[in-house]
């Protein structure tokens, strides 16, 4: 045995010493980013998840969304459109297009490409294609003018800046389907071209030398976007210098990562939050007093500051802080077990009689922590909470099937398709016959009217629309159809040698490669 162990050790050292450095490529500036989830669908018409990390560098929209600094209003900055205007009746939007832009295959970018892209997305009708529901036609009076005809007034500049389904692609793609894209094909106008694509594993992008916007000094030549599901592996690769950027790091390790040489942690407010929808379709949670009592039984401070290490902030209502339409004067519940117990008594719920189930997606660490902590604090007021972790699909299917037999609390995270408070308010709490994401089964006609009215104002009078969303948000928070836990931050680890990284909350997970330099 000892002989063989020695031989084994010898073999290992031999292999190790064999390590001749691979062919160096000193003249190339390589950047790699490590994601927690693989890219699945890179068809710009239908992609609906973190694939935008790739798409936003290969394709461009007409308009970019740029969040305001320090509380200032957000602005829309020109991308492939240089200017735009809306008609008196709000039903015609005219976009002037950038001159001299070519797609990666040499096709010129014209109004025909705009028409093609919007119509392809509408025809495919997949992912977030619904954002264009009010667009009836795209007219092309000349190559550099695209005119959108609408059936209903809508803030088309905002919609055109969507993170999903608003990307411009080359008409030379023709009638190719999603499968063609997912074989590793892409024809956009962006600063990077797709060089190699392995679905779910990685994508290699290389600089597009013909990009209209040029390149920064010391810009990136090649970018590797890879996915590794294990947070500890992402962290180790970042610390070891094998990757330059990594997302979804374990919150408890952030201090150590920040303290390590050569890497820093970048934090920025995200338009994303985490909450638990109460089942309002069934007693006793159909009683708002009971829901308010349960909202007072979550240890917000301890969870936010201690368990999540200050990486998140306690939510105030459903629309995250920093998003237009956030309800700044909505009620924010605080942890008070005595008050919670008294409220339960007052609502006629006898101590020890209430048993609730919570479902959450297994493998999401913060969901598990939140559920475990909530279970313990509910136990203090005599409420039993049963935890049921399951896959997202199973969790969702069960919730949609029959509200009367469904879970009591549905925990999930939400972020908008394009930056509008209506996305949160309507998707999650608007009453509907067909259940999609209103998994609180919340049915409040007054609330529905409020948000629909506000949304109707969005194209004409943004200030009034945001005020409308805020007052609807206030009503919602008071009614407590959900446990509003926290708003998240976007937290990434990044190599110190990389300059120019900033986070745009409208495009979650995207590293804008053409802004980076080393």
């Amino acid at each position, binding site marked *: *045995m000892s002989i*063989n162990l020695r031989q*084994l050790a010898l073999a*290992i050292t031999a*292999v*190790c010493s*064999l*390590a*001749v*450095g*691979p*062919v*160096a*490529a000193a003249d*190339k500036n*390589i950047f*790699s980013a490590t994601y927690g989830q*693989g890219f*699945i*669908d890179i068809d710009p018409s239908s992609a*609906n998840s973190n694939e935008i990390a790739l798409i936003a560098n290969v394709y461009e929209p007409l308009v970019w969304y740029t969040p305001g600094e320090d509380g200032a209003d957000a602005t829309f900055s020109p991308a492939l459109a240089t200017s735009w205007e809306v008609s008196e009746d709000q039903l015609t939007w005219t976009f002037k297009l950038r001159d001299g832009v070519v797609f990666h295959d040499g096709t010129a970018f014209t109004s025909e490409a705009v028409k093609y892209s919007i119509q392809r997305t509408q025809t495919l*009708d*997949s*992912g*977030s294609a619904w954002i264009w529901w009010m667009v009836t036609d795209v007219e092309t009076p000349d190559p550099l003018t695209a005119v959108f005809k609408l059936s209903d007034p809508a803030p088309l500049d905002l919609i055109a800046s969507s993170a999903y389904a608003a990307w411009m692609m080359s008409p030379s793609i023709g009638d190719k389907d*999603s*499968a063609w894209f*997912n074989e590793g094909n892409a024809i956009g106008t962006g600063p990077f071209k797709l060089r190699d694509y392995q*679905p*779910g*594993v990685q994508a*290699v992008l290389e600089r597009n030398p013909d990009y209209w916007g040029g390149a920064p000094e010391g810009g990136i030549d*090649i970018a*590797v976007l890879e996915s*590794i*599901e*294990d947070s500890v*592996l992402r962290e*180790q*690769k970042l610390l*070891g210098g*094998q990757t330059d950027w990594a997302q979804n790091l374990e919150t408890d390790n952030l201090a150590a990562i920040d303290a390590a040489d050569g890497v820093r942690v970048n934090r920025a407010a995200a338009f994303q939050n985490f909450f638990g929808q109460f089942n309002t379709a069934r007693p006793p949670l159909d009683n708002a007093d009971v829901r308010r009592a349960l909202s007072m039984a979550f240890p917000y401070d301890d969870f936010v500051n201690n368990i999540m290490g200050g990486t998140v902030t306690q939510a105030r209502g459903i629309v995250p802080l920093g998003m237009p339409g956030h309800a700044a004067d909505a009620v924010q519940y605080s942890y008070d077990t005595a008050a919670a117990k008294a409220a339960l008594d007052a609502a006629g719920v006898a101590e020890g009689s209430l048993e609730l189930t919570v479902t959450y997606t*297994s*493998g999401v660490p913060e969901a598990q922590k939140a559920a475990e902590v909530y279970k313990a604090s509910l136990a203090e007021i005599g409420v039993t909470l049963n935890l049921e972790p399951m*896959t*997202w*699909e*199973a969790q*969702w*299917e*069960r919730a949609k*099937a029959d509200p009367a037999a469904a879970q009591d609390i549905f925990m999930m995270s939400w972020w908008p398709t394009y930056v509008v408070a209506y996305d949160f308010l309507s998707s999650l709490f608007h009453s509907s016959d*067909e259940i*999609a994401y209103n998994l609180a089964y919340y049915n409040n006609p007054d609330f529905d009217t409020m948000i629909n009215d506000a949304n109707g104002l969005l194209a004409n009078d943004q200030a009034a629309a945001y005020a409308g969303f805020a007052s609807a948000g206030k009503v919602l928070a008071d009614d407590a159809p959900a446990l509003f836990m926290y708003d998240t931050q976007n937290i990434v680890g990044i190599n110190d040698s990389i300059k120019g990284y900033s986070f745009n909350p409208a495009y979650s997970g995207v590293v804008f490669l053409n802004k980076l330099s080393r």
Partner: protein
Amino acid sequence: MGFKVLGKRLLMACVVIFCVSVLTFLATRILPTDPAALYAGPRASTAKIEEARLRLGLDKPLVLQYAQFAGKALTGDFGVSYRTRQPISKDIKKFLPATLELVFIAMLMAVVVGIPLGVLAASKPKGCLDQISRLGAIGMASFPVFWIAMIFQLVFFSWLNWLPLSGQFSRETMLFNPITVVTGFNSIDAILSGNWAALSDVARHLVLPALTLSLYPIALAMRMTRSAMGEVMQEHYITTATAMGLSRREILFRFALKNALPQTITVLGLTFAFSLTGAVLVEVIFAWPGIGSYVTAAILAVDFPVIMAVTLVGTVIYVLVNLLVDLAQASLDPRVALS
């Protein structure tokens, strides 16, 4: 061995595979989760889901659905994965070699390390070496694979920094020194294309996952060889050989092992099975893009077509390997009849 017996065995294998396919098919269809909704993807409208139902043929009776599934599976078409949106056969073709590379190394280790150790242990039953190897083998078989994998990463990457943490090769190899795909096995392809820099990189990445995966097979090979040898060593001809003054080494390896070999061959079949499933855990820890990580991700995404396809392919490989092992055993030892 007669062809008739062989034919019967093959037929049995086919029946078993058929039953397995029916069972997995039924199991995935009696679930409350709607495959059409999964196929249509998140935020899909009811109309899209109904369209998916028609496209997948889910509106047809179960028997027809099974016939369709089996017919396509026979031609290697397992449909499209809900999660990766890629044809499953293409995915399997891409991920299977990475797993087999690990599995073959583990089996090789079982033969090269495990069997000789078993022979040595058998040379002096109840001796010191025998006791140590018994404890060693039982110990190796008692480690949780995923845990020992983490400990290896801690020691060889974090502390010693001898070996890479995870993956199949470094970023530089992938970008500037890519391996030409011939067989799909990275190490073999690197040799075939004479890409030595890549080969050393690939070898370095292989060490930890392969070592982790081989622990159990080595232990198994040691114990099985030891027990097979133990029986042979009590036979009269060994005693005779010893009396004739043959050297201990010659007796052990020329006579005893040869006669214990048929039983030891069984080790190969068993190690193959255990490595195949052990690979699931090893690949998760080492971010190894093999069939194990593929099926784990599929399970977490309720990607039934993939779960079914991998279970089926795994079973077919497993049944075939067992058949081969039985045949090898029969040809080595005429006393073992193929019943």
